């Protein structure tokens, strides 16, 4: 599984960072970015789905499968 935060949609609610700090980092302005290349370790997949389900702006995309 991989995740990606759409920087145009993210408004800095920071729900993803609160729920899955291992997967999302915040810049100095509070905008979220996926950590590294967005690859989600198997044991954090539920956390990734939780982050997606709590983003008020629908800014996080989940892609099943490994990085291309």
């Amino acid at each position, binding site marked *: 599984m991989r995740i990606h935060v759409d920087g145009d949609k993210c*408004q*800095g*609610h*920071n*729900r993803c*960072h*609160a729920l899955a700090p291992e997967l999302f980092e*915040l810049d*100095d*302005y*509070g905008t979220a970015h996926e950590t590294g290349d967005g690859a989600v370790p198997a044991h954090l997949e539920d956390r990734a789905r*939780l982050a997606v*389900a*709590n*983003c*008020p*702006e*629908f800014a996080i995309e989940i892609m099943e499968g490994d990085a291309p």
Partner: protein
Amino acid sequence: MTDLDRESASGRAGTSTRDAAVRQVVGDDRTDVVSTPHGPVTDWANDFDHTDPVWAADPYPIWDELRGTCPVAHTERYGGAWLPLTHELVSEVAYDTEHFSSRSIIVTGSRPGDIAPVGIAPPISSDPPFHHGARRLLLPEFTPKAIAPLEPFTRAYCNGLLDEVAGNDVVDAAIDYGQHIPVRVIAKMLGFPASDADRFRTFVYDALERVDRPPAERGETIGHLVDYISTQMAEHQAEPRDDLTSYLLGAEMDGEVISHRHVFGTIALLLLAGIDTTWSAIGASIWHLAKTPDDRERLVAEPDLIPTAIEEFLRAYAPVTMARLVKDDFDFHGCPMKADDWVLLPFPSANRDPEAFERADEVIIDRSENRHAAFGLGIHRCLGSNLARLELRIAIETWLERYPNFTLADPDAVRWSGGQVRGPRVLPVRILPA
């Protein structure tokens, strides 16, 4: 440099400048006063009033009915206003900065004068493109990392408030507790004297809850706010400190130090926007726990669930309804909107929309999927949302540690504020043996 700039720098706001600043806040009473035919509402679809006592006491049935039958209500009060009720329509307005302006975001009978691009209280009252830079000035000061150092202070302050009422059988969770917390925290951030807390609360009440008063009366009371902030700015100018006020006085946008009018507006925003909103959220959460023993017992037993429960309280009892002004005449889903009509953004109603949330009318404290819009949507997302969450979490944790068992002392005595920020203003709670 404007008059306000010069006078703030010299430490006083002269009469003409004070009047200009007051006009910024309350609107220009010479050009656009519209009498508001106040009276009890009998037709919520065509003559709604968000300050009606029925709305303040329990707006949910009103919203539920309108959402199902008339997704955009209208009123001639306040010079014309619209009220979209569904999550979809509220989102659409929030994201549409082309048709809707944030020039003013509190509905009154008048309209602001030509104050673009800075606006009354930047960045909440600014439109793109000015909004972007004005917001970026503040964002770094309100990230989770930036505000985390306030946690021990906030916790100690909450404990101190409860120490003051220790031993009382009945504690007013709104008056003795909730109302003090955001005031003290924002005063600390701005570097204003803690002893001025009562004055802040008066400012908030005048600005946000007395919207039905005539412009002249609003101007007089809001003049005190202008004087107060001007004095604080002058003192910080003379003697800079490590606080938000001094930071703003030296802040730059596009390579230039921002104007004193801009600093003034931003300080007014931080004072007004963070106080009764967070107070409302703290009160509504304690109100829910006082009347729902199962939820209260579960949070006492499982304090790790508190952050999740807080998101649900924010969804179900979201305090804030925002507003926009229509830029130019246009048709919005069949509604003939006119330039300068208000459009209310009832995020609390969006949060109760069954199309957007399962079991939307139930409070489920372990709700795992919760895309609530309590802090708004789009570019004006509440800048202080992390701070509000920190204060709310600590307030609830501290309260439950001290009072694991409590109930409403008198359900009929609870009083809710009306208007655009809704929360309990009187909330007597009976403390029971643990």
